[in-house]
């Protein structure tokens, strides 16, 4: 059997059948036609047993971890639905849902003010914070693998501010709030994010690995340049609009326009789904481009895909929620410590934990000083910043 001049490897089941059916002689002849590691000596039953056990334990581990994280996320969402300026208990929530279902109407007439708060204010916001948190953590995972640096994060590296600049320029030139505008805004942010991502990568990651110092330096400088440009663009806007822009820049999950959520979701889901198809390559990219290529990864193609999808997701997130920092750094870091470095588990687990983390941060943001709201970006910076410093100062040996 031949494909592209390469030999097809018979499946393990065929091998086992062969073993039973053939005489020793024939089995040896058969062995010579196969690539070396099998031909050398057939794996001992001991090895085959262990392989089966490990193969099973690897997939059950992934299943169990992701299952429990998903359950945790749902529980947390239910808990956070209850919290707010007015506490709404579980019993009342169930009552409201049943009433709305019975009457087939989710308007004020059937569920009252409490129901409106629950389903039209809190629920969309909770969904948004989960989606944004999941996206930020996922992009963090990708950036860390791509830059081979466990401290990378869309905010630290300057991708978020690049995306913000794109969005700010779009607003400056009067993109408006039509449906078309809501579709185009994430694309402008995407362009800005892609620009800064390519710049950061160019600054050194091609020569093996971007050192932690040059990475942070590149991030600081990009952030400074982009912030200056954003500030400049607010000068040119009318004061009302620039005030809104400043509030948005601090990172907020107050949803202004609800069609935005649908548009955002489409961009993010497409981006995350595309990233999902690259996880195995992502594992290899962490070993450096040369090693990845030696193991059969078409690094140029994979890199392009990762740049584009990471910038797309960041752009979509930033255009709705502004700059929310540190979620993309802290969450993958913690998940890696708990569940290991393999991206096939790390990526989805980080997404789930990222959703939980931002949900918690946002619940704190809207309840701590209620009725005043703290921009959620301030909460994540105050919680994540010190952690970042700790990692930088005390775990330097593992990072540099």
């Amino acid at each position, binding site marked *: 059997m031949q494909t592209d001049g390469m030999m097809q490897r018979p499946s393990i089941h065929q091998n086992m059948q062969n073993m039973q059916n053939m005489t020793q002689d024939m089995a040896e002849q058969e062995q010579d036609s196969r690539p070396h590691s099998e031909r050398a000596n057939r794996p001992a039953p001991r090895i085959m047993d262990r392989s089966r056990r490990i193969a099973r334990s690897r997939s059950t581990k992934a299943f169990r971890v992701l299952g429990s994280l998903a359950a945790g996320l749902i529980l947390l969402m239910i808990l956070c639905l209850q919290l707010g300026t007015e506490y709404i208990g579980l019993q009342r929530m169930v009552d409201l849902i049943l009433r709305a279902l019975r009457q087939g109407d989710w308007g004020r007439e059937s569920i009252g003010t409490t129901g409106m708060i629950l389903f039209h204010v809190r629920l969309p916001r909770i969904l948004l914070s989960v989606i944004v948190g999941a996206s930020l953590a996922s992009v963090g995972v990708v950036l860390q693998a791509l830059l081979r640096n466990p401290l990378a994060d869309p905010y630290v590296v300057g991708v978020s501010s690049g995306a913000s600049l794109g969005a700010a320029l779009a607003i400056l030139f009067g993109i408006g709030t039509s449906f078309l505008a809501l579709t185009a805004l994430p694309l402008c942010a995407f362009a800005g994010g892609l620009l800064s991502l390519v710049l950061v990568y160019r600054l050194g990651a091609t020569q093996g690995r971007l050192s932690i110092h040059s990475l942070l330096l590149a991030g600081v400088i990009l952030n400074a340049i982009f912030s200056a440009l954003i500030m400049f663009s607010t000068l040119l806007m009318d004061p009302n609009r620039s005030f809104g822009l400043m509030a948005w820049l601090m990172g907020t999950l107050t949803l202004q326009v609800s069609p935005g959520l649908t548009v955002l979701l489409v961009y993010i889901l497409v981006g995350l789904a595309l990233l999902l*198809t690259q996880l*195995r390559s992502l594992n290899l990219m962490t070993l450096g481009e040369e090693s990845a290529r*030696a193991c*059969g990864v078409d690094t140029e193609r994979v890199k392009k895909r990762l740049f584009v999808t990471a910038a797309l997701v960041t752009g979509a997130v930033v255009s709705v929620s502004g700059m929310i920092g540190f979620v993309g750094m802290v969450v993958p870091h913690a998940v890696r410590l708990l569940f290991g470095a393999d991206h096939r588990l790390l990526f989805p687990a980080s997404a789930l934990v990222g959703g939980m983390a931002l949900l918690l941060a946002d619940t704190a943001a809207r309840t701590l000083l209620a009725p005043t709201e703290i921009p959620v970006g301030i909460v994540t910076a105050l919680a994540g910043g010190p952690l970042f410093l700790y990692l930088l100062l005390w775990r330097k040996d593992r990072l540099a």
Partner: protein
Amino acid sequence: MNDGPHNRDVVAADRRSLLATDDGRPMSSMPIYEVRSLSLSYPANNPDGLLWAVRELSFDIQSGEFVGIVGPNGSGKTSLLKLLGKVLRPKTGTIRLRGRDLATIPQNEVARTVAMVPQESLQVFPFTVLETVLMGRHPHHGSTWRDGFSWENEEDLDIAMEAMEATDVAHLSDRAVADLSGGERQRCLIARALAQAPQVLLLDEPTAFLDLPHQIDISALLRRLTDRQGLTLLLISHDLNLAGQYADRMLMMKEGALFAAGTTEDVIRPDILKAVYGCEVLVDRHPESGRPRVTLPAWTRRPT
């Protein structure tokens, strides 16, 4: 075990008959590598503006050969190996792998035929030994969207475990590679290359960090891979004796070009060593194999 050239030829001939090339020529007349006027340069701060890492190299590698590549630091050995593994692109010249232009073969197809053991590898994230070795199975998986996140199957694990046993890292399988010693990490990289189930193995200083018993183990393993399984091996080593004892043929490089090629007897000669390395060494014979053996003089003399 009856190792030796005779046994190897039989196996190699058997393999060749099973493989045909694209243009239908039988394998027997076809070298596995045909390298023609291969050059690679880097931008540099000198009058030419270029630093030639590899200059006008031409040679063939036969299937099943064990080739040792030696030469001083900076003579282009590692660059040559990376070119052969399609990790670097040549500036000019061509490499043909089993008759096909390497530049036109997709990366994952190259990696199914050619595996590389790098000198060192980045270890930023806490991958375990097993996870690292399983990465060698990457080229054997498709590139459809589902393969992006599917787990390795039992067959992949069988092959990985076997490779780990062969290089004596099976007992480390759940340890993080970053926490291993240099020698253990090197054996793990060899296991990853074996897990690719390649027909060509490119090794860059595979024994540099190994202690004595593991040096013997790995050398014996390499010899076994060519003798019994018909693998083609290209090995870079600073240890002239290691390369000289095991290799069928040696390539001596100097300043990016091929200085000498041939059997150990042809290459390990005092005059050649003097011309390439610029220092005098003692060359006698290995008491067991009878092959030339290099010993450093009791004091180091430099030509004036």
